[in-house]
């Protein structure tokens, strides 16, 4: 059963990528989903980013202070955010806010025969429901992660520089010395892959709603499964990506 589901998920992803590159592309739906996954997630990303940066600065300052290395607060906050916390927390936030909604929407369409209706019109449901989400996820996640990183670094600045007294020049100067392009690229690669994971898992769970149960109950089960599986996969894949990119 697990193997069958994995196989189905694999085929689902391959098909989604295939229809992403073969026209016609539903541009309006892609834009709509970029707005939904990306733009409408900015507030939660802003808040999460700000407080993550602030707490990183607070914890980092007292730890570095023991070794007399407060000057490295800037690079520590920046590297932690850019390489790890930015992509991972953005991914988890988007899973909770947008991924769950995508699963519920597609799941409800499945149990109310709307997906069958699309199929009977001679149209491909994957093109309408999955491809726009996949492309939107790939575009939105890196942008959201970039916002998370910038806001987080500014949050760290507020705590480290304005409250704890680290010099502003030291905070940003050391950051410029230690943060390299490959660190930024690592964060971008991770967020791109998380965009795929979230939309793939959430769309799949919604699309196959009704296979294991009935009605509203199965929509709720699919939504829970989508959020849990996406979150776990993000963390597991994050480990492997970090191991590969180091």
């Amino acid at each position, binding site marked *: 059963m697990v193997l069958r589901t994995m196989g189905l998920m694999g085929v689902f992803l391959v098909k989604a990528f295939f229809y992403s590159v073969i026209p016609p592309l539903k541009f309006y739906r892609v834009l709509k989903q970029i707005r939904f996954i990306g733009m409408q997630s900015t507030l939660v990303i802003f808040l999460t980013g700000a407080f993550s940066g602030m707490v990183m600065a607070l914890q980092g300052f007292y730890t570095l202070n023991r070794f007399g290395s407060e000057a490295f607060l800037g690079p520590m906050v920046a590297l932690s955010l850019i390489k790890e916390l930015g992509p991972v927390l953005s991914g988890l936030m988007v899973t909770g806010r947008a991924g769950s909604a995508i699963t519920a929407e597609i799941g*409800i369409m499945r149990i*109310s*025969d*709307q997906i*069958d*209706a699309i*199929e*009977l*019109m*001679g*149209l491909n449901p994957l093109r309408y429901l999955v491809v726009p989400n996949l492309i939107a996820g790939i575009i939105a996640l890196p942008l959201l992660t970039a916002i998370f990183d910038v806001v987080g670094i500014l949050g760290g600045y507020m705590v480290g520089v304005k409250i704890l007294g680290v010099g502003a020049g030291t905070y940003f100067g050391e950051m410029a010395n230690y943060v390299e392009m490959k660190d930024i690229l690592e964060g971008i690669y991770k967020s791109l892959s998380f965009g795929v994971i979230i939309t793939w898992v959430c769309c799949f769970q919604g699309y196959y709603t009704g296979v294991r149960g009935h009605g509203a109950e199965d929509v709720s089960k699919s939504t829970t499964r989508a959020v849990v599986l996406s979150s776990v996969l993000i963390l597991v894949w994050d480990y492997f990506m970090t191991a590969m990119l180091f």
Partner: protein
Amino acid sequence: MIEIEDLHKSFNGYEVLKGVSLGIEKGEILVLIGRSGYGKSVILKHIAGLMRPDRGRIVVDGKEIGKLSGKALTQLRSRLGFLFQGNALFSSLTVFENVAFPLKEKTRLGNAEIRERVLYELDQVGLSGAEKKYPSQLSGGMQKRAALARELVFEPEIMLFDEPTTGLDPIIGHAILNLIDSLHKRLDFTSIIVTHEIPKVFEIVNKVAMIHEGVILIVGSPEEIISSEDPIVRQFIRGEVEGPISYR
């Protein structure tokens, strides 16, 4: 036009269809009756190619549905309309957008032509003036008519109706059946109706088939079914609690 031969289908080890065989001629309108959960909707979904049989075959115009895929299946489906029990209207679109959806996606018609076609179909089903409403703002009967309008935009040769009157009051239910009758006269589609609207539905159909315990028990004209001596058929048609069919 539609031939169902020895159709078998199981779900989770429970065999719902145990060898259904049934034929429908071109232009005929058949009602499929039988107890709830006996696989009537499953038969419709097989004809539409939404389910694959475990055994047996369905042939539409000489083409076996189970063996069609890709363009051939799409082509066949373009000749077919399916009114789902729950209507399957897109809840985020207005009535106009719902009916226009297949035209926008499947044809190269301009906005003016699409508008004309949509308004014509809405008028045919008595929904003029409701085009800006969302499905959730419509009554059950209006939703049914909107879904029917969407199915009619391509003037299908085959129409499948899955419990078109369920959940509607008797007056609206009868109005829907009358609408199906008038549309059948206009478009001359071949049709299968799954419904419990007995005996009203007998007024508009040529043929009645009753499914019982996974097989077709009887096929005949409405008059033959009404006068049938079969105790199962008699009990079902009259809706009697006592008889060979257990209600538990």
